[in-house]
């Protein structure tokens, strides 16, 4: 199947106008020594055949009937209206809004996105989007280095290990050194980052402290104390948050975060095997000129109407080239639109309902497994919508449950040897009482 409209007669007409005998003549400039010798791709398919092939592959995935897996990606209800909005081809098939007169739909929706993210995080300015939460966090760390003119950063090991890996890669280029401050994983520990430990790691060469709330283990970090520790050393606090949690938790702007990043996937974006998602970044207005990524601003047109444009572009690669704040160009605009539509669809009350359902059901899980003598909480202290539970033979039992179409969370020993036999279980509003009961039953049947 091909999407070219040209008939052979039309091609001949164009070739004649150009004054060449065949289309091959248009490729004479490829030096003979380096012309392609092969192109061994499969033959074309009709739509019917494409559907069969893609259906075959999608059918080879097995979506679990019950899953308590989160660890940074959460299965939430995606309201039908969100899919409807981003499915409109006026949004989906538009380019970057470089011509504002014919891009007000995209531009206004990004301005609304920036406004919503500012409101949710309590920050003054939000960017138009990043590739994902991990790269937004890495860019935030580099931004803090530019703002403080320092070249070392401190990272809590309560930060999602995927994010820590991406941070390491991004920092390796410019040679930014990473110092890790361990979360308290001791027996009877809180699973969180102690401010004293952070203070010890900080010093006058550190650009920022990166900490996550709720942290990777679902535990609630003492963010105000961490902010104080960072600021005491002249460093910035990069707060990595989960957007749904901000319905209930103190916004990072209130506890002194300087840069906020998040994975926006929970806001109406399907898990889709890891992407596309949307990285969120917000900051204070006085650091906007070091902020990476596109920004939309409001202005007036020649008819004195309100309108929106890409602005402060002197930070960006197409203007500043090697002096740009980042090389980012294409971002995740359509996913940002999904997050915008989601936040509007659920509103303040709906977002609260989603957060309350998740935090309630995860406690239901922990209480039910504890009451049945099947598991114990690995950490002390408060958690949010994910909980680390220890149980004998956790990995083997997780495998056994898999055979029953159930994913019993994420095995934490994958990243931390100290967390053997510990599973991280997540709940959302999609988690039902029946699923919790079946988890208890399944674990009981799998000693």
């Amino acid at each position: 199947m091909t999407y070219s409209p040209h008939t052979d007669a039309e091609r001949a007409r164009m070739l004649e106008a150009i004054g060449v005998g065949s289309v091959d003549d248009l490729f004479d400039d490829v030096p003979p020594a380096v012309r392609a010798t092969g192109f061994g791709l499969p033959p074309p398919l009709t739509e019917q055949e494409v559907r069969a092939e893609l259906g075959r592959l999608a059918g080879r995935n097995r979506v679990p009937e019950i899953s308590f897996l989160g660890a940074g990606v959460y299965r939430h209800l995606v309201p039908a209206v969100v899919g409807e909005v981003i499915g409109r081809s006026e949004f989906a098939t538009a380019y970057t809004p470089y011509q504002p007169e014919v891009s007000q739909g995209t531009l206004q929706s990004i301005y609304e996105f920036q406004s919503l993210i500012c409101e949710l995080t309590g920050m003054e300015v939000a960017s138009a989007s990043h590739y994902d939460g991990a790269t937004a966090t890495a860019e935030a760390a580099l931004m803090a280095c530019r703002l403080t003119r320092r070249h070392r950063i401190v990272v809590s090991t309560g930060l999602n290990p995927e994010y820590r890996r991406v941070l390491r890669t991004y920092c390796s280029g410019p040679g930014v050194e990473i110092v890790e401050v361990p979360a308290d994983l001791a027996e009877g520990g809180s699973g969180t980052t102690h401010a004293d430990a952070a203070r010890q790691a900080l010093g006058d060469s550190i650009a920022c402290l990166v900490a996550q709330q709720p942290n990777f283990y679902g535990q609630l970090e003492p963010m105000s104390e961490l902010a104080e520790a960072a600021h005491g050393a002249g460093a910035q606090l990069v707060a990595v948050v989960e957007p749904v949690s901000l319905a209930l938790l103190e916004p990072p702007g209130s506890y002194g975060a300087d840069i906020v990043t998040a994975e926006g996937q929970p806001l109406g974006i399907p898990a889709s095997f890891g992407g596309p998602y949307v990285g969120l970044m917000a900051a204070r207005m006085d650091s906007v000129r070091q902020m990476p990524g596109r920004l939309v601003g409001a202005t007036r047109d020649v008819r004195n109407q309100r309108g929106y444009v890409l602005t402060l572009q002197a930070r960006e690669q197409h203007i500043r080239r090697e002096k740009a704040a980042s090389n980012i160009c294409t971002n995740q605009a359509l996913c940002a639109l999904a997050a915008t539509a989601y936040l509007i669809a659920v509103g303040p009350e709906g977002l609260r309902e989603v957060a309350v359902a998740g935090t309630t059901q995860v406690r239901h899980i922990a209480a039910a497994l504890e009451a049945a003598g099947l598991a114990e909480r690995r950490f002390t202290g408060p958690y949010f919508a994910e909980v680390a539970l220890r149980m004998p033979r956790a990995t083997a039992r997780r495998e056994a449950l898999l055979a029953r179409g159930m994913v019993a969370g994420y095995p934490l020993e994958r990243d931390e040897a100290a967390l053997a036999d510990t599973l991280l279980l997540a709940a959302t509003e999609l988690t039902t009482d029946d699923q919790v009961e079946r988890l208890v039953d399944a674990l009981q049947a799998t000693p």
Partner: protein
Amino acid sequence: MSVADTRPAAAAPGGSDTSGRGSAFRSGTPEGDGVTVVEPLIFEHSRPGRRAVRFPSPSAAARQAAASQPRVPDPLRRRAAPRLPEVSELDLVRHFNRLSHLNFAIDLGFYPLGSCTMKYNPKVNEWAAHLPGFADSHPLDPAPLSQGSLELQWLLAELLKEVSGFAAVSLQPAAGAHGELTGMLMARAYHASRGEGEQRTTVLVPDSAHGTNPATASMVGYATVTIRSNERGGIDLQALREALGPETAALMITNPSTLGIFEDQIDQVIAAVHEAGALAYMDGANLNAILGRFRAGEAGFDLMHFNLHKTFSTPHGGGGPGAGPVGASDRMAPFLPTPLPLLEAGDPEEVRRNAWRGRSTPGGRFALEQPDARPTSIGKVRAFTGNFGTHVRAYAYIRSNGADGLRSVSNDAVLAANYLRVRLSDAYELPYDRICKHEVIFSGRRQKRANGVTTLDIAKALLDEGIHPPTIYFPLIVDEALMIEPTETESLETLERFVEVMHDIARRASQDPAALRASPRHTPVGRLDEAGAARRPDLRYRFPDGADSAPAGPTEP
């Protein structure tokens, strides 16, 4: 004047205000013909207590069980609920449908935006990406649950290897610039592995390059050296040889270039770079011109990124998401990001053969590489394995076209660009009058000199004709540049109309330049005050005084 100034009028449904943005519809132009959509900010639609989507409350049993667990301590709680808009679902639908009417899009009209490859995005690809088996697949699901996702990624990498002639491909980078970053980090790792990490500190970039190339070099700590183009629009081989040295880490070169020209000495360019011990990186943004004609890996390039959202037709989404996979030669493959999708059990040849016939291979098993399996890897550049939904669309596109289809994609794209080249060369100056590839670069110099009509004016006049302007003022080395990329999916009638409109604009430039400078007149908004926007940044909605949020509601647990 701030946005908030228009609120009183906006709050009166059906009313209008001096801004013209206060109600849903108004007459379209200053002359009063037509009807145009105008749409307030969603915050201005908000009414306390209005709702769209609702969620079930946890059961009494769940709440009772939860009560035995630690609560979220008060000091960590939000004191006031976020002031998200409160609207009905119909409010929401109308808001975004009206906004959508203010957009131009490839599904609405011709989009000859140079270097962006705005081709048609087939609908069956969207259908595929939304299949529940893909959409509901969690990236951390155990491999036995994700065999379809993993097989698709493995097969897509195989197809991209064949398209490019590279030994290996990583799908992880999320965009072209992200692919460049990956490539330059790999270059660093390669030189370090040979003990030349400290010595090689510069990256060479032609003066016609995209801004992302020098920005990427800086991001990995390299200094950029700019290489001038020669009078034929190619890289100046002499200048390149002079610039190459023991401190050169890599050359980043876009081929075909942003002038739409194939580097006809590319073999000598690659040889010169390798002779200096440096790496040759190809920016694959313009791959749409050369499918089946030139394979960068086969020609000796060490690295290249693909733009799936350009060549392989995944929709641009108003600025993303895209995907920027990176291809690597044999010697660069060990440095690719981790994890790669692997065929863990099964014969690769058999798995490919079966998949091309729409069959699964019995006993075939896929897995992700273990995190530390390849110590030479630069690590991860993104969480998980990339923009998977984009991979699905690109895979569907490549399979639809097949070898013959992809060859004709490039043939027709190049044919269309050359057709516009000859048809417009009477009206606009053609700085490089030679066979072009996917795009052709004109200059508006003549119109500027003779009539004071700039390339910006020409672009804005096109908007009034329902045509998206070409890329303008880029590449930087062409004065008043107009960079036109028609792509292969536009019919001859569309190309003819574009020629007609461009001729008409050239004529009007000499007859009535003032009218052109006043364009656009028929768009939802006129030219915008961009300087003012940058001088007084207004980057978010300001709530009116007293519109403080309600205290956060009951927040158990």
